[in-house]
């Protein structure tokens, strides 16, 4: 390993970056743009869900409960009527997501202790329907308690690490992982594929440069750019989305660097197999975005997946990084307690490195 060779390649890479300010701006702005986009778009909480309330008898009991829904942040009562046909119409047209129907004998049966309410749900989006149902149950139970009634069992719940149960707090670290995976892999996939397209590697192969020196020199400037991206993303997470950073910033940065290295090596491996920029960028996109989104535990819990898919997630680097960054952000845990995830990332990095070097030797691509 000759440091002068590494430096020569790294410096050249910096020149390329500075020479192409549009790409550089894109690399630097894309993560925060995506973070804003996903941060606001992906919501697993209910907020101002349109609701219809049908009171087939207007009395104090139904009025009190309806007022609860009106006051709630989760619902927005857009329709109040005493005819249940209005509710079915509104559901048909998609104007409301759910309709709460108080039958005429509600108040009477409430006193007897066997009151019934009908809840009609728009099940086209099953997830939202389930969410609405849970919120409604919660509000009704709360109301019952307030009136001194007794639901069958009373649960004293307390949610750790995310007291307000804001889904955002869990989502933002996941979005950061996804964005960094895409940007990291894309950067290296494009830059190495470009040198293959332009025939630069042919020239480099006649110099005393080695594969390791080339790879190290090539990756190091992009690692710095990636870290800059990451710093911006963490700042946005903490100051814009109010995600608490309870653990050590240093630990978070070090682990993020490791994750960046993994996805950048993934990009390098992709580019030497693809050979051109178009294919390389598509492969980088698909192979980072989809697994980071679907198979990383970002939105869908890995434990709920079919067993074969669970095994598949073992080779998704984002899975380990998301577990680590959530733990550092929300639990304030030290990464030493999560050494299996850290070790898994290290192992994947090592495997990618070996395969990249071996592949490029076999294809006769890198010096």
């Amino acid at each position, binding site marked *: 390993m000759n440091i002068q*060779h590494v430096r020569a390649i790294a*410096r*050249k890479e910096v*020149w*390329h970056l500075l*020479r192409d300010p549009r790409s550089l701006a894109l690399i630097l702005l894309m993560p925060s743009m995506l973070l804003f986009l996903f941060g606001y778009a992906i919501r697993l909480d209910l907020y101002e869900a349109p609701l219809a309330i049908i009171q087939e008898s207007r009395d104090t009991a139904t009025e009190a409960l309806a007022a609860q829904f009106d006051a709630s942040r989760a619902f927005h009562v857009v329709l109040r009527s005493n005819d249940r046909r209005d509710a079915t119409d509104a559901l048909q047209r998609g104007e409301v997501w759910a309709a709460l129907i108080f039958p005429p004998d509600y108040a009477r049966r409430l006193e007897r202790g066997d009151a019934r309410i009908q809840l009609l749900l728009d099940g086209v989006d099953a997830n939202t329907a389930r969410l609405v149902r849970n919120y409604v149950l919660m509000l009704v139970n709360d109301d019952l308690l307030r009136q001194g009634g007794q639901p069958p069992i009373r649960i004293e719940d307390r949610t750790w690490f995310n007291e307000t149960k804001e889904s955002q707090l869990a989502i933002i670290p996941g979005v950061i992982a996804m964005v960094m995976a895409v940007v990291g892999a894309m950067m290296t996939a494009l830059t190495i594929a470009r040198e293959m397209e332009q025939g*630069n590697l042919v*020239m480099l192969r*006649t110099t*005393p440069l080695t594969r390791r020196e080339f790879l190290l020199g090539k990756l190091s400037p992009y690692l710095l750019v990636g870290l800059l991206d990451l710093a911006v993303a963490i700042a946005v997470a903490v100051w814009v989305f109010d995600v608490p950073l309870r653990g050590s910033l240093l630990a978070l940065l070090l682990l993020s660097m490791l994750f960046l290295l993994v996805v950048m090596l993934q990009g390098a491996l992709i580019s030497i197999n693809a050979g051109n920029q178009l294919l390389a960028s598509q492969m980088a996109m698909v192979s980072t975005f989809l697994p980071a989104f679907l198979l990383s535990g970002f939105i869908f819990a890995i434990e709920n997946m079919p067993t074969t898919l669970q095994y598949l997630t073992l080779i998704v680097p984002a899975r380990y990084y998301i577990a680590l960054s959530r733990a550092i952000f929300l639990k304030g845990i030290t990464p030493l307690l999560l050494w299996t995830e850290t070790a898994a990332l290290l192992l994947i990095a090592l495997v990618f490195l070996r395969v990249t070097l071996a592949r490029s030797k076999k294809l006769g691509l890198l010096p």
Partner: protein
Amino acid sequence: MSDAAAPLILAEDLTRRFGDFTAVDHIHVAVQPGEVFGLLGANGAGKTTAIRMLCGMLPPTTGRIQVADVDMVRHARRARGQIGYVAQRFSLYGDLTVLENLSLQAGLYGLTGARRHERLEEALRLLNLREHRAVMAGALPLGYKQRLGLAAALLHEPRVLFLDEPTSGVDPMARQRFWELIYDLADSGIGILVTTHYMDEALFCDRLALMQAGRVVAEGTPDELLRRPLPTPILELDSPDAVRFERLAHTWPEVREVIPHAGQLRIRLRAGTEPAALRARVDAVAVEQRLTVTALRPAAPELEDVFVAVLEENEV
């Protein structure tokens, strides 16, 4: 520069197979210090595979390569420090300036401090690139790009220079200057191996090897090659009716090829045909069609004639 000196490039029994296909078939190459060695051949004859092996880009299937006294197969990295290579296609970075490209090369060849500065200035001076140092390499005209490629290859004062079709697409004036520079470099004792398919360029080489189907089918100095007896004689027909003769000659059984050349016809006969047979045919046709023949004489063979003859011999 004497014959006694050890060759700077020495390849023995060099073979490269790709599956069942033998791209280079047991060739021997020896290039002395100060010598310009030309490797000729059609596309697919094996020139590029040969030069890639000699530069250490492609390991040979069998054979031995020694470049500047270093074993290229086993110590490729050390050997690469002794060679300069100019690719057929511009392979430096178009979005870097001339000077940045050269600085990169300086770094890759381990030049530092005063020597680095000195070599950069020298390379810019030698190739007349001084006023273009801040220009993006991609914006240079083709001839300048080629010079930049050469400047980069010469930065570390290599003992051996490989040029893969260095002047393809470059205008004649630039080619001329390029070759003058090659001669100067050879005079300083560098061993130069160049591939080309321009016949006039081949004449500039000290020694030539003609490749066909992976093998070297003819080798020697241009003079030696020109003195080879041709199995297919060449005649030169000088006539004011050259255009009509050309049309007729295509149909004659004795003729293999007719090449109009500066108002004359160069007529290449089939192997085994006597020039007298053609002379008789020309005279008969001249009388019959009332055409004038100013002169019909044996022509001095050109390098291309020699190569065509050699290639034909080997095709059988």
